[in-house]
């Protein structure tokens, strides 16, 4: 594919430069830091949308366009490259929107809770963008470490015993998972002799005997590392604690961190073990399906059992990852399209929910949560307001009504009720599950019934839990005062929920885009060809004389 545009690397460079620049300023210069980081997030949104637009097919063409950026200007497939296709562009947009919302939210108070908040946050965005763009397995490891290192700092942001304890568990688990990641990458390299994802997809189809066994084992170990990050049962006991202990804007942006694991699993399993992979075709998809189902079940029980709202949101994250993973394991393009839709809407809803919970719980008397306190990991709000840091800004009127409506929208989204995208996505998944080959056609697989019942049951469980939590916090408030909520804290929630409403109104174009993305994923030939035939931006200047 000709003309690799330099814009592809912008989503990595912009937050890196801005984050590095902010390190030179003291934390006292908050307004400046807020302004720079929000401008960065806005720039990321613009770049992400421009990139997404570029992946739209040229007039008359069927396939989406794929751009390859050769970082060292080595001929492909040697060395590291960045690949932009529809899926990575969509994920970039999602990251940028979440980042903007969380940064606006933290203007009010959270950025004051610790040092270098903005830089860490921007480095996290850089790591996320890099992980979505890279086309090289080891470079993926590096970007993962960038985003994890930033997230270690962010999960501890605000400090306090609960955060430090949850953060320590989070760090240990992720360090161990990173070691598994390295083992997997090393095994794949020793069998295939390359680390370029597209090249690996070609080589995987040609391996046989011991080489194939080692490559499959390596892919399995690599998969475990991503399953840990995606929060899949039984590797997820750390997740609800860490997410509910984290500061609200951090938890909001963490709702996409599990989706990075899901994204990689989706990308690699369909690339390496797609229809072209010969006898390893479909390797691991059954395991992914079962793991996804188990996670839905675990998350469902957790959602029903949660007494504190933070944990309720934490378990909803699990339900959301489990659903997407099970749909990937189902390996059918239509279901994947629905799952992508679900991924977008549930990530936005979860991010809004995490921020909302902090606002709701702000007004509550800790005594009202006596039950919740009994739970081992309940992170009591250490953010007891210091009169000196009383926030300045415009408070909103009718606080409870605004919060209540937003909470109801989050509930509707997560439970999958019409008319919002949660419902549309589940409907799309169910439709393609039961009509594998066009409407009313094709044999229905056994697993369809299982997945369908789990989808509906998990929605029901979420609905019960959200209703219960909503009644307790809005209708039956025990003493608790009405929280004082600022405009800048409601604005990001409104932004996220507006994005979801836009997705509902423009459901047709959105779904068509996701459908095309899913069919690209299930037919990775175009991706492989684009990478293998990528042209150097600057041709080598001939052979160098000895």
């Amino acid at each position, binding site marked *: 594919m000709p003309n690799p545009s330099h814009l592809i690397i912008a989503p990595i460079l912009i937050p890196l430069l801005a984050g590095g620049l902010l390190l030179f300023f003291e934390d006292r210069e908050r307004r400046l830091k807020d302004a720079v980081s929000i401008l960065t997030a806005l720039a990321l949104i613009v770049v992400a949308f421009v990139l997404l637009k570029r992946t739209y097919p040229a007039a008359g063409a069927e396939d989406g366009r794929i751009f390859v950026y050769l970082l060292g200007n080595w001929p492909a497939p040697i060395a590291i490259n960045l690949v932009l296709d529809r899926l990575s562009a969509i994920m970039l947009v999602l990251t940028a929107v979440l980042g903007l919302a969380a940064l606006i939210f933290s203007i009010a108070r959270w950025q004051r809770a610790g040092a270098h908040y903005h830089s860490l946050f921007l480095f996290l965005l850089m790591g996320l963008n890099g992980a979505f763009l890279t086309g090289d397995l080891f470079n993926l490891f590096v970007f993962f470490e960038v985003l994890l*290192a930033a997230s270690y700092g962010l999960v501890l942001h605000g400090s306090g015993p609960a955060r*430090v*304890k949850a953060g*320590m568990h989070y*760090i240990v688990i992720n360090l*161990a998972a990173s070691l598994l990641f390295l083992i997997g*990458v090393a095994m794949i*390299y020793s069998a295939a002799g390359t680390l370029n994802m597209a090249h690996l997809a070609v080589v995987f189809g040609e391996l046989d005997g011991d080489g194939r066994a080692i490559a499959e084992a390596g892919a399995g170990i690599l998969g475990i590392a991503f399953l840990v990050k995606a929060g899949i049962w039984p590797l997820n006991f750390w997740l609800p604690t860490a997410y509910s202990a984290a500061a609200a804007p951090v938890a909001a942006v963490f709702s996409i961190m599990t989706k990075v694991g899901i994204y990689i699993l989706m990308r690699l399993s369909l690339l390496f073990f797609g229809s072209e992979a010969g006898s390893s075709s479909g390797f691991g998809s059954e395991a992914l399906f079962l793991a996804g189902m188990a996670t839905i079940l675990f998350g469902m029980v957790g959602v029903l059992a949660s007494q504190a709202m933070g944990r309720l949101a934490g378990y909803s994250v699990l339900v959301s990852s489990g659903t997407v993973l099970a749909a990937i394991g189902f390996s059918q393009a239509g279901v994947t399209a629905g799952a992508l839709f679900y991924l977008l809407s549930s990530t936005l809803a979860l991010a809004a929910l995490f921020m909302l919970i902090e606002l709701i719980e702000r007004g509550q008397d800790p005594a009202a949560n006596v039950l919740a306190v009994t739970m081992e990991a309940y992170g009591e709000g250490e953010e007891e307001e210091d009169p000196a840091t009383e926030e300045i800004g415009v408070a909103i009127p009718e606080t409870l009504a605004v919060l209540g409506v937003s909470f109801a929208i989050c509930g509707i989204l997560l439970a999958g009720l019409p008319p919002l995208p949660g419902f549309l996505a589940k409907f799309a998944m169910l439709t393609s599950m039961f009509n594998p080959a066009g409407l009313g056609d094709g044999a229905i697989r056994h697993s369809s019934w299982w997945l369908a019942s789990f989808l509906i049951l998990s929605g029901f469980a979420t609905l019960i839990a959200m209703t219960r939590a909503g009644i307790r916090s809005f209708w039956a408030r025990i003493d608790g005062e009405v929280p004082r909520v600022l405009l800048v804290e409601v604005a990001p929630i409104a932004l996220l929920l507006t994005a979801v409403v836009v997705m509902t109104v423009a459901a047709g174009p959105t779904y068509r885009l996701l459908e095309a993305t899913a069919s690209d994923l299930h037919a990775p030939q175009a991706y492989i060809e684009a990478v293998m035939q990528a042209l150097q931006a600057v041709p080598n200047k001939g052979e160098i004389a*000895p």
Partner: protein
Amino acid sequence: MELLLSLSIGALVGSGVWLLLRPRTYQVIIGLSLLSYAVNLFIFSTGRLRVNAAPIVEKGTEIDPAAFADPVPQALVLTAIVISFATTALFLVVLLASRGLTGTDHVDGRESEK
């Protein structure tokens, strides 16, 4: 040499995993370090073990790839060493913070009831 290397990787992983599962934060951090040493050795070994073979190719001469060691795992292991070193240092800070906040070095922040 293969036997020696695999035995040492095995010993490192075994002790690393055992330490990782211990309840003291210091044991956990040493366990993680041992595990990362083992993983680094493992990455290094994926380039096949060679003696007296350089990973760097001379410019402009006719090259027989069989006479050279694979440079990629060596580059990878360098990156992995740096990253695991940095994350271990970061974990050390968290460990100290936890010790300061909770007054114990237990991973759960409090002693388990015996």
